[in-house]
């Protein structure tokens, strides 16, 4: 699960991770109030969307007066912010973070995430703050310093010291960096985060070390023990069809293609998308109906796929292991009778009672393209697209 920058900073504050003074605002009026509360003479107005690259897209501006805070807030709120992560349609800005301006001396990087190869968390720092870590890793990997965390004992003080020295920090900046890094790991660990990325991490001329930006993602599997994080979910940042799918226990991801697909199992669903592509189409979605595909799941799957106007054909691919294919076939027939599907449906059911399922589909009087094998299904996709 993803959250906004301001929410991440609120969490970090709770764990004594230094962040600039600031607060969320939903209107220009509120923005001015927040700025007044912060005080000082310099503020930063930051668009809050679940995507990176906001600064380049024009979503982060510096204000030198309260009037300017009002003006810039008015400009950014309601804009469609386009960044390299939003796609060409951009994201509507509905929330702002108003923050104190800080006296930046250096921009650094720190990130914590799981290293899958080691099955341990790893904390990484770099002096190349503000750049994408992937870019640093590719171009100058020697500029990334990593410490692997032993899950039995957690992050140790010597590791924080090593990283802070590695960043070339001294005196007060060094001391604050050690504190910052240890606290950040605490926050990551305690919230079941899957990513905590501070880019840039800044050191100020006054010796402070703080998170100028903050990105935190959380492990979906662990949300059951963090109701306070679940509350931070912003549905405006999610695809409406995906929210709808979740309600029906369907795992759906909307894509930009023209062939919808409905599959049981994540691996087979990805494999089916790949087949659509090889057959000359583009997958319109990922949809895993789960291990217990039945009439209801199939019907809601259809409704969701058909809400996407780009879909020109649907490929259903179910491998009935424990699930009986004839039951799935009946579910498909019932759903199609109920929802009047006007586009070609290619259906391939394999496994338990596949033969009976085929007969049900053939005798349904409905216009299905029944495919025997996966290869056959791919060929039928090609033929309906042409």
């Amino acid at each position, binding site marked *: 699960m993803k959250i906004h920058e301001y929410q991440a900073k609120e969490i970090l504050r709770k764990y004594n991770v230094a962040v600039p003074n600031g607060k969320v605002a939903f209107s220009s009026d509120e923005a001015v109030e927040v700025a007044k509360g912060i005080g000082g003479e310099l503020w930063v107005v930051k668009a809050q969307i679940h995507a990176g690259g906001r600064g380049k897209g024009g979503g982060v501006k510096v204000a030198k007066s309260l009037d300017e805070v009002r003006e810039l807030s008015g400009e950014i709120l309601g804009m469609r912010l386009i960044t390299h992560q939003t796609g060409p349609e951009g994201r509507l800005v509905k929330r702002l973070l108003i923050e104190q301006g800080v006296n930046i001396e250096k921009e650094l990087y720190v990130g914590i995430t799981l290293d*899958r190869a080691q099955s341990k968390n790893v904390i990484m720092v770099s002096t190349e703050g503000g750049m994408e870590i992937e870019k640093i890793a590719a171009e100058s990997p020697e500029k990334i310093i990593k410490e692997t965390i032993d899950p039995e004992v957690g992050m140790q003080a010597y590791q924080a010291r090593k990283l802070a020295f590695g960043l070339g920090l001294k005196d007060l900046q060094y001391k604050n960096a050690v504190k910052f890094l240890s606290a950040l790991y605490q926050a990551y660990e305690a919230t079941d985060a899957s990513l905590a990325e501070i880019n840039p991490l800044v050191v100020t001329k006054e010796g402070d070390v703080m998170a100028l930006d903050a990105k935190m993602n959380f492990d979906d*599997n662990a949300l059951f023990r963090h109701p306070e994080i679940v509350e931070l979910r912003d549905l405006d940042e999610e695809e409406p069809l995906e929210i709808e799918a979740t309600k029906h226990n369907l*795992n759906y991801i909307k894509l930009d293609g023209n062939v919808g697909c409905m599959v049981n199992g994540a*691996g087979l669903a*990805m494999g089916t998308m*790949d087949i659509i*592509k090889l057959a000359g189409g583009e997958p319109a979605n990922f949809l895993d109906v789960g291990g217990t595909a039945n009439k209801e799941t199939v019907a809601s799957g259809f409704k969701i796929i058909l809400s996407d106007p780009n879909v020109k054909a649907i490929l259903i691919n179910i491998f009935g292991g424990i699930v009986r294919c004839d039951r799935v076939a009946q579910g498909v027939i019932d759903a199609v009778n109920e929802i009047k599907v006007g586009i070609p449906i290619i259906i391939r059911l394999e*496994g*338990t009672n596949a033969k009976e399922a085929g007969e049900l589909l053939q005798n349904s009087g409905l216009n299905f393209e029944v495919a025997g094998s996966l290869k056959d299904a791919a060929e039928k996709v090609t033929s309906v697209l042409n």
Partner: protein
Amino acid sequence: MSILVDKKTRLVVQGITGGEGSFHTKQMIAYGTKVVAGVTPGKGGQNFEGVPIYNTVADAVKEQKANTSVIFVPPSFAADAILEAANAGIKLIVCITEGIPVKDMVKVFNSIKNKDVRLIGPNCPGVISPGKAKIGIMPGFIHKKGNVGVVSRSGTLTYEAVKQLSDLNIGQSTGVGIGGDPIVGSQFIDIIKLFNEDPDTLGIVMIGEIGGSAEEEAAAYIKKYVKKPVVGFIAGRTAPAGRRMGHAGAIISGGKGTAKEKMEAMKKAGIKVVDSPAEIGITMQKALLNLNGKSTTTTVQKAKGAAANKKTGVKTGKATTNSSSKKGAAATKKSSLTANKAAGTAKKSTKLVKKAIVVKSASAGTAKKPALVKSKKK
């Protein structure tokens, strides 16, 4: 032979009285798996379908000599269940549970990694050695006893591949679903090592997906040590970056873990990588036939000699392979130089078995006849 599970497997089901646990326990028993015990804390002393239930895994090990465990408990209790099994002396733990928090698995993985226990999963369909034992939730009927090892991160996609193989009359030695989570107890490389050392596994199907680098690591190992034909597929070429595709582990992050990268690494390692999952079975068939084609010219002398000792080609082939492959496996550990030689030996005898298989299945398919005729002539 097979890997991980066979007729010696004595299974304890953790969470035997739950919905999933009870359903699949019946299925496993029906398949012929020796389910010797169940564990549900608080229900010790009862029984399920004639299987005695214990309060702890330790009791099940003590009373029923359980050596393998399968876990069906809910995600919030699953990490604890794995640790309980590991500390009770279970040697193989298969965790089916989906949705275990990563933090829990980090602790579990690092806690058991130096112990004498193997974990398969979590979030996996399980392990099956056709005709011997089925530990997990895969449909038994699509499998066929044979000599191809299947290892995969997926569930239904594995069934798809297995079905393709079985339909072509290519049986499986063992099928292993390693699971779709970012942290799993056994990786491709661990299972492929076992398949490589198993004399009855003549070919390997490896089905990966986007995310992580386990496929690349396995490819590097295969390039160095595996002489058996490997057919590979990676699901998720069309998946967008940054999105979790169902499986918690199936995510392209920071430009890493793409299907393209994995497929390239696998191709470089000599793996026969298929673009379409529909081609897995047929590609393995070709690889096995190719193996057989070579064997008819290179190992015919040995085959003749061996055939003189035993009555049927099938038995001969197997007997020969067993002994020399074991030598091969032992030598692998010594040095890469001897490993190569040993692998060469293993390869030759492998071909013998291949021929035996062709003899066995020739009646089923005309495509295999030429190879059979050829070897007969010589």
